[in-house]
C-alpha cells in the first residue's frame, strides 16, 4: 500500500501527518511495551520511525507523554531512549517545539544508572542549542534549576553538566541565578555531586565573564582542591588546566598557583598522579615562566615520588615536557634539571616506570642533538636495552627511528643485536610478536648486509614457531622485507628456504610454505611465481593431510591472477579439477571455489 504511492505524490504530502488508520498509536505503544526486553529495545531504537508514522502533531501529543509516563524500564531501554530523543527535534516539529522533548529527558536525567543519565544530559545539551533564547529561559533554565535542587543526588549530578550550555545565552539576571546554583552544587553534601561539579568546573569557567571567573570560580576551585575526599581533589586538577588558560600571569600566580603547588604535593597519590598525568596541559596553560619556576621542581618531585604509579605517569610526560619548553635555554634546563632524574629512573625498581620512560626517552635525542645524545642519552638507551623486563627493551626498539635520525642506528647495533635475539626467543609469544612487527623497520635502518648476517636466521626461525600467530606474523614480515630489499634478494635468500619447508614432516610447516607463497607471490612477480613457486604448490596437491590440500586450492586461487593463461589452463586447472573430486568435503569446496573465481570451471 505504502509502496504504491510513488514519488509522484510530491512535496505536498511530505509535511503532512502519517496515515492514522494504518498505525494507531496503540499498536506502536504495544510494541514499546512488549514483554521481551529485546523487542522493546528494538522498538525504542526505531522510535524515529514510529514518530515519523505518527506525524509531528501526534508525536507531541501522544507519543511523548507516553514516553514520559513509562520511564521505568530496563536501563538498556532507557539508554536507547535517551539517545534517540537527542535527535528528535525535527520529528516534533522543529526548534519551536524542541521544549516538548524536555519532560522525558528530565526524568531520564534523574535515573540511577550513570550511563543513562550521562546520555540524557548529552541529549539535553544537544537540544539546548536548538532552543530559541526565549524558549531557553522559559523551559530549559527552569529544568536545570529543578534538577539542581532535586532531592536525590542523581538529578543534581546531571544538572552539573547543563550549566555551561545555557549560561552564555541567558539574560544577566538568569545568569546570576545559574551561578548561584552551580556554587551550591560545588559544596554539596554528597561527594558524588561535588565530583560532578568539579569535573564541569573548567567547562563552566570557560563560558563565564572574566570577573566572575576570578570572583566566583577561583574560590570554588580552591575549595574543591582541598576537599576532604581525594576523588574530588583530583578532579580539581583537571579544572585547573581550563581556569589557568583564562587568567593573566599575575592572576595565575596569585589565584591558582598556591593551589596547584599544594596538589602536586597532596598526601594522596591519586591527586599527585593526576598532576603528573595532566602535566603537559598544565605546562601549556600556565606558560613558560611559571613552568620554569614552579612546574619543573614539581616535576622533579613527581619523578621521584614514593608511588610507582606517580613516577610512571610523570615518566610518560618527560618528552612532551621537554618539547614544550621554550627553545632558548631548553637544552640547559633539560641537561641540568631533568636528565639527572631520568638517569635515576633507568634503574627504577618498578618495571612500569622503566617501561614508561623507555617509551619516550628516545624522543629526547631530537631535542638534545647529536653530541648530547651520544654522550648522555646513549648510555641510558644501552642500559634499557639490557633491562630484564622485555617491555622496556621493546619500547626502546620500537622507537629506534627517533635516534636513527640523529645519530644513526649503527651506534646502537652492537647492543641492539643481543637485545633483539633475546626478545625473538622470549617465552611469551606476545613479546615475540611485537619484535616481529619491528623487523621491517630495523631491516631498513640496519641495511641488507647486517640483516643477512644477523637477523635473517631469526626471521626464518619464526616460520616454524609453535604459535600460529607468530608464524602468521612471520610470513607477513617476509613480504614486507621483500618489498624493502627487492625480488632478487628474495630469490636468493628467502624463496629457497621457504620452498624447502614444503617437504617438512610436520604438516603445519608445510602449510607455512603455502601461506608464505600466498603473500610473497605478488611481491616476487610472475616469473618467480611461475617457475619456482607454482611447481611446489602443485606437488603439494597430493599431500596426505586434507588441510594441506585445501590450502593448496586456496593458494592457487590466490596466485592464479599472477600466472599467465597457459600455466592456468595447463597446470592449475587439472590439479584443481582433481581436488574438486577429493574425498574431503572442505578440499572439494575450496577447489570448486578456486575454479569459479579463476573462471576455469
Amino acid at each position, binding site marked *: 500500500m505504502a*509502496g504504491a504511492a510513488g*514519488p509522484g505524490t510530491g512535496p505536498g504530502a*511530505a509535511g503532512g501527518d502519517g496515515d492514522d488508520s*494504518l498505525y494507531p498509536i496503540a*499498536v506502536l505503544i504495544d510494541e514499546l511495551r512488549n514483554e521481551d526486553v529485546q523487542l522493546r529495545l528494538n522498538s525504542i531504537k526505531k522510535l524515529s520511525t514510529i514518530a515519523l508514522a505518527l506525524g509531528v502533531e501526534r508525536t507531541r501529543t501522544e507519543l511523548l507523554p507516553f514516553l514520559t509516563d513509562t520511564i521505568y524500564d530496563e536501563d538498556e531501554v532507557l539508554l536507547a531512549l535517551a539517545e534517540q530523543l537527542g535527535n528528535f527535534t525535527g520529528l516534533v516539529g522543529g526548534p519551536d517545539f524542541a521544549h516538548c522533548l524536555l519532560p522525558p529527558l528530565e526524568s531520564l536525567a534523574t535515573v540511577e544508572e*550513570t550511563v543513562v543519565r550521562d546520555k540524557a544530559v548529552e541529549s539535553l545539551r544537544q537540544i539546548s542549542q536548538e532552543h530559541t533564547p526565549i524558549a531557553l529561559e522559559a523551559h530549559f533554565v527552569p529544568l536545570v534549576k529543578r534538577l539542581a535542587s532535586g532531592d536525590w543526588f542523581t538529578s543534581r549530578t546531571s544538572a552539573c553538566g547543563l550549566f555551561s550550555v545555557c549560561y552564555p545565552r541567558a539574560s544577566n539576571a538568569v545568569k546570576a541565578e545559574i551561578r548561584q546554583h552551580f556554587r551550591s552544587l560545588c559544596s554539596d553534601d554528597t*561527594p558524588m555531586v561535588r565530583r560532578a561539579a568539579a569535573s564541569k568546573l573548567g567547562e563552566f569557567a570557560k563560558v563565564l565573564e572574566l570577573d566572575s571567573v576570578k570572583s566566583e570560580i577561583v574560590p570554588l576551585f580552591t575549595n574543591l582542591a582541598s576537599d576532604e575526599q581525594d576523588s574530588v581533589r583530583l578532579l580539581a586538577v583537571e579544572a585547573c588546566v581550563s581556569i589557568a588558560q583564562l587568567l593573566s600571569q599575575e592572576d595565575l600566580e596569585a589565584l591558582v598557583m598556591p593551589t596547584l603547588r599544594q596538589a602536586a604535593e597532596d598526601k594522596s*597519590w591519586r591527586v599527585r598522579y593526576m598532576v603528573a598525568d595532566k602535566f603537559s596541559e598544565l605546562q601549556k596553560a600556565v606558560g613558560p615562566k611559571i613552568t620554569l619556576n614552579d612546574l619543573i621542581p614539581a616535576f622533579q618531585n613527581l619523578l621521584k615520588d614514593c*608511588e610507582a604509579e606517580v613516577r610512571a605517569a610523570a615518566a610518560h610526560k618527560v618528552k612532551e615536557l621537554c618539547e614544550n619548553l621554550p627553545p632558548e635555554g631548553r637544552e640547559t634546563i633539560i641537561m641540568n634539571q631533568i636528565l639527572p632524574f631520568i638517569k635515576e629512573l633507568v634503574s627504577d625498581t618498578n618495571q612500569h616506570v622503566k617501561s614508561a620512560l623507555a617509551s619516550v626517552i628516545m624522543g629526547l635525542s631530537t631535542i638534545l642533538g647529536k653530541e648530547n645524545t651520544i654522550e648522555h642519552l646513549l648510555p641510558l638507551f644501552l642500559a634499557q636495552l639490557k633491562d630484564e623486563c622485555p617491555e622496556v627493551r621493546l619500547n626502546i626498539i620500537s622507537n629506534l627511528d627517533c635516534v636513527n635520525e640523529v645519530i644513526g642506528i649503527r651506534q646502537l647495533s652492537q647492543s641492539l643485536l643481543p637485545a633483539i635475539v633475546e626478545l625473538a626467543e622470549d617465552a611469551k609469544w606476545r613479546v615475540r610478536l611485537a619484535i616481529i612487527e619491528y623487523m621491517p623497520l630495523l631491516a631498513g635502518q640496519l641495511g641488507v648486509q647486517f640483516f643477512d648476517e644477523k637477523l635473517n636466521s631469526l626471521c626464518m626461525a619464526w616460520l616454524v614457531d*609453535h604459535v600460529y600467530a607468530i608464524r602468521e606474523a612471520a610470513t607477513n614480515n617476509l613480504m614486507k622485507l621483500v618489498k624493502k630489499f627487492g625480488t632478487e634478494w628474495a630469490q636468493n635468500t628467502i624463496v629457497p628456504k621457504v620452498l624447502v619447508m614444503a617437504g617438512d614432516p610436520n604438516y603445519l610447516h608445510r602449510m607455512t610454505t603455502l601461506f608464505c607463497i600466498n603473500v610473497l607471490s605478488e611481491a616476487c612477480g610472475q616469473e618467480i611465481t611461475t617457475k619456482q613457486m607454482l611447481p611446489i604448490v602443485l606437488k603439494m596437491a597430493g599431500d596426505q593431510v586434507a588441510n594441506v590440500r585445501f590450502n593448496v586450492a586456496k593458494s592457487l586461487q590466490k596466485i592464479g591472477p599472477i600466472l599467465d593463461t597457459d600455466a592456468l589452463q595447463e597446470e592449475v586447472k587439472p590439479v584443481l579439477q582433481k581436488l574438486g573430486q577429493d574425498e574431503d568435503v572442505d578440499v572439494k569446496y575450496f577447489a570448486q571455489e578456486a575454479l569459479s573465481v579463476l573462471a576455469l570451471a
Partner: protein
Amino acid sequence: MSSSSPPVGAASAAISASEKVDGFTRKSVRKAQRQKRSQGSSQFRSQGSQAELHPLPQLKDATSNEQQELFCQKLQQCCILFDFMDSVSDLKSKEIKRATLNELVEYVSTNRGVIVESAYSDIVKMISANIFRTLPPSDNPDFDPEEDEPTLEASWPHIQLVYEFFLRFLESPDFQPSIAKRYIDQKFVQQLLELFDSEDPRERDFLKTVLHRIYGKFLGLRAFIRKQINNIFLRFIYETEHFNGVAELLEILGSIINGFALPLKAEHKQFLMKVLIPMHTAKGLALFHAQLAYCVVQFLEKDTTLTEPVIRGLLKFWPKTCSQKEVMFLGEIEEILDVIEPTQFKKIEEPLFKQISKCVSSSHFQVAERALYFWNNEYILSLIEENIDKILPIMFGSLYKISKEHWNPTIVALVYNVLKTLMEMNGKLFDDLTSSYKAERQREKKKELEREELWKKLEELKLKKALEKQNSAYNMHSILSNTSDE
C-alpha cells in the same frame, strides 16, 4: 582458599613448558608462582632519617603518680612511624615500639581507672597517626578478589597492635563516649571508613569490629556513619566498581538494620531501594552476596510491604549473561519467599514466575536446577498450590518444552517431577493447557509475523518520506536552476 594451589617448585616447572605453547598460564599457577607480597602505606616519602627510639621504663614498675605521665609518653612514642618496606632499617626502634604497644594493650585491658580524661587526646592521636594513611595503589591492577591473594599490609606487626589497643580502649568499662566524642568525630569516622578499602582482610576484620563498637557507643555519629556508607556504596556501584570492604560494611549494616525501629524511616527505605538493590548489579557480587541478601531479608522481616518493590527491583536487575550471578539471585529469591506473606506473594507472583519460568528453561543446567529446587521447598510449594490457577499457565509452556528438549538428563528428570506436582495441584487446568499448547505456539508465531509486517510497513513509510524529501529538494533545485537559466 589456597588449598588447591600446587607447590611452588612444580608450578614454575610447569610454566616454562606451558608458556611456550600459548603464553596463557592458568591463573592458579601464576598465583602460586608469585611469592606473597606485602605493601607499605603510601605515607613514606623520603622524609630523612628516623628518630631512634629509646626504651622507656615499664609501666608496671612506675609509681601510680608517675604512671599516667609515663602512659602518655609511651603513647607519644608510638606515634612515630617506621618504614616496613625496608626490612632492615630501624630494627631496634621497631622492636621497642612493638614491645611498647604490647605493653599498652595489656595496660588498658588489665587495669581499671587508667583511661582518664586527659589521656583521650593522646590515645586518639596515637591511633590516628598509625592507622590513618592513604592506601597505596593496588600492586596488581587487575586484582581479582576471588582468585588472587590479597597484598598484605607491611606494617602489620605494629598496626595490628594499634587496632588491638583501639578495641580494648573502646571496650573498656572506663571508656566514656561523652569525652571520647570530642576526638572521635565525623572526620575521624570518615577516615576510618576509607580504610575499609584496604586489601588486607585482617585489617578489614579489625575495622569491622571497631566501627561496630563506635556505632554502638556514639549515638550522635550513627546517622553520619550510615550516610557515609551510603556514599561509599553509591560510588562503588556507579563510579569505581571497586571497594574491598563491601562485605564487611554490609555485615555491620545487617545488624544495624536489625535494630531499626518501626515504622521504618523514609531514609532507610530509600537506602534499601536505591542502594542495596542496585548493588546487585556489581561485577563482584559473589564476594558479598550473602551479606547483601541478609540485609535485604532483614528489611523484609521488618516491613513486609517492601516485598513487592524489592522483588520488582531484583527482576529489573536480573543478570542477563552471568549464570553464576543468576544462581545467586535465585538463592536470594528463595530466601525472600521463605519469609513472604501470602498477600504479598499474590502481588508479585506474575512477574516473578515469568522470570522463574525463564530460569527453568535456561540452557545452563545450574540455573535451571537452582530454579527447579524451589519445588523442594514446602512453603513455596504451598504458595504455588494456593495460586495454581495463576502460576500454572505461566510455567506450563517452558516446563513442557524443556521436558522434551533440555540437553541435561538431570534437568529433564526434575522437570518431570515438577510437572507431576503441578498436575496434582490442578489436573483439569493441566489437561487444558496440554491440549491448547500447540494452538498457543501457533498463535505466538502468527503474532511474530504480524509484528514483522508492521515494521516492514513502517520502514517503507520512512523510505517513502525520505524519497519525498529528496524529490521536493530536487524540485526546488530544478526550479532555482531554471530561473537562473532564464
